């Protein structure tokens, strides 16, 4: 569940909402779905909130290995 992609989670959530709206469930099933939906929405919200602004440059060091170096945005401004 933790590895699920945001859009998958969102799609699943949407499906659950649709399913619930159709209402072809027993109460037990519906509660299960609801719980699953809440969990998914929590994941999505978390994903939305946990992102941090970060701009890196991809550079290769002398050994040819990749390194990420934070970008000094002022360098871009002319």
């Amino acid at each position: 569940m933790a590895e699920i992609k945001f859009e998958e989670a969102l799609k699943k959530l949407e499906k659950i909402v649709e399913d619930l709206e159709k209402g072809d469930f027993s109460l037990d099933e519906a509660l299960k779905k609801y719980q699953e939906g809440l969990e998914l929405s929590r994941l999505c919200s978390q994903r939305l909130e946990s992102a941090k602004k970060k701009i890196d440059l991809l550079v290769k060091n002398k050994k040819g290995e990749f390194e990420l170096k934070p970008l000094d945005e002022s360098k871009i401004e002319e």
Partner: protein
Amino acid sequence: MPKAPPDLFTQNTSLKDNRHIYTVSELTQNIKLVLENTFAQVWVEGEVSGIGRIQTGTTFLSLKDSNSLLKCVIFPSNLNAVKFEIKDGLKVICFGRVSVYEKTGQYQLYIEKIEPKGIGSLQLALEQLKEKLEKEGLFAVEHKKPMPYLPSRIGVVTSLTGAAIKDILKVLDRRFKDVNIIINPVRVQGEGAKEDIAQAIQDFNRLNQQVGMEAQIDVLIVGRGGGSIEDLWAFNEEIVARAIYNSRIPIISAVGHERDWTIADLVADLRAPTPSVAAELVIPKKEDVSHELDGFIGGLRKGLQDLVLSLDETMDDLIHRLSLNAGHIWELNRTQCVSATKKLTLLNPAALIPQYKTRMLDLAKQIYVRMDHLFKLKNSQFFGLIEKLSSLNPLNILARGYSVTFKMPEGKIIKEAKSIKTGDTIKTRVYKGDIFSKVTEVS
């Protein structure tokens, strides 16, 4: 003696000192000089035919028109600048010098520049490459990768100088300021640009293989700001097209302005008309996503609520129907019970008593009537018989004066005289009383 044949050589001996005899090389050299001096810089147009290339990279071809044919050579150094593919049948305008290839004594045009006739060189190159890649399926819709809905990391292949990167960062900051951006800076025009761009795309793909799931780059923006067709040319190069095609990371192309369509745009999974638009396409607005998510959460709550409400209603309905049915069943049972009781009452033997009584009385009455009748009948018969009997009573005959005689002591009625003998006692019954006699004579 025949006349000796004329000595052709001696005839000219007088000229011997004046004449100049070239060696082949000398003459060829001279011709070469003449040609090179005369045709050092010429433009010539014609149709390409018989094109071929040798291992060193030198290209041979002929230019022809309806009457003549001109042998031509292009050295690799001059070929590098040619963007389009030189093909047989192509009408071209060439610039170069005419010279002689001494070994074969062949004069030929050494082409320095070659342009397609009637259409720009770059344009033709573009058309040719487009056709080729199209055939190979590089533009095929089936190959286009879907865009991630909400990328965590966005890779950007562009120059750090210029409008494109500024526009992209600005728009991304506005839409979803928290996103992680990784820039692989490249030259986007001039020498080395196409190699830089292709390499940068490959680097991002390699990086993705080296890092874990949590650090994957989800999408690439490859592009640059506006410029002349020559400025944008790197994005029309085959090497760039192939790098885009081979990328496992979905790519949004963002080259120049709306009107600029490059081959990179055709191969990319999604084409953005400008870098700014690419930044808009690559990620949704954070507030839109939040809003959507809120909507879903609301929908989730409402869905459950509605379900509970509807279950509640269903339950009410069921209870209602249950009670209704119970009442109905009760009523039904009651009716049945009453009806059964009624039937039972009707079937009660006690209820039959009056009936039997009536019947009995009826029968008794009948018996009585019949008995009376019978009695009367028998009575009348009896009286009839009595009357008859009385009419038959011998006493009644006796009354009329007749008598009857019995032999005694047996008391047997005497009907014949011979049944008695003299001396027997007989009794004669008369109407009133009996007479005993002794027989004196029998006749």
